């Protein structure tokens, strides 16, 4: 049973435009959500997080939106840059500090020049 789902395996975006990556979850106990970015042959690196008490968190070009009623979150990257090309994983946990993260399958983002 996939508790965290990223339904788009891949996404291609023009450089300078907005990239929107989506994630859905089924476990209503999830309270804390994170996005990780992964380059080939490297481990995932933490990008941004959001607690369920918020609906938006912004860090530079990256913004995460959370819609608890829809059990949906999204990551917006604007403007997209070639270095953003990577696999992006959505992850969730039942509370901040519970490190048993449940990851989605990932979305491969390609930024075209």
């Amino acid at each position, binding site marked *: 049973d996939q508790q965290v789902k990223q339904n788009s395996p891949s996404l291609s975006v023009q450089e300078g435009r907005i990239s929107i990556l989506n994630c859905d979850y089924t476990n209503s106990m999830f309270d804390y959500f994170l996005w990780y970015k992964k380059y080939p*042959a*490297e*481990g*995932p*690196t933490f990008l941004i997080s959001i607690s369920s008490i918020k609906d938006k968190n912004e860090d530079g070009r990256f913004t995460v939106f959370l819609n608890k009623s829809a059990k949906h979150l999204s990551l917006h990257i604007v403007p997209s840059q070639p270095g953003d090309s990577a696999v992006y994983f959505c992850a969730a946990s039942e509370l901040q500090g519970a*490190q048993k*993260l449940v*990851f989605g399958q990932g979305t491969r983002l390609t930024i075209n020049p």
Partner: protein
Amino acid sequence: GAGVSQTPSNKVTEKGKYVELRCDPISGHTALYWYRQSLGQGPEFLIYFQGTGAADDSGLPNDRFFAVRPEGSVSTLKIQRTERGDSAVYLCASSLLPDSPLHFGNGTRLTVT
């Protein structure tokens, strides 16, 4: 400062053999985690150490898998009687505190032939 170091980076072994995978966390990080990533999937939680003790080993798939962290720093993931289905990238991560973001190593790619 060095990141999380995992050795070996690649391991090929025959079905039925025993393997050990090593993780050196970031110095000073008290929490250490093992995840497993199969092809086309996101990382799956295996085990979490706080100090020397396993705080949560609920992700270990069966009793062929065991992990230790005897001195609260380096950890070893041990797999007995390996099976072809154990083939995956094994990721180690550490964090300064339990509620801090995870820092992942580059992983060990295990191939069981």
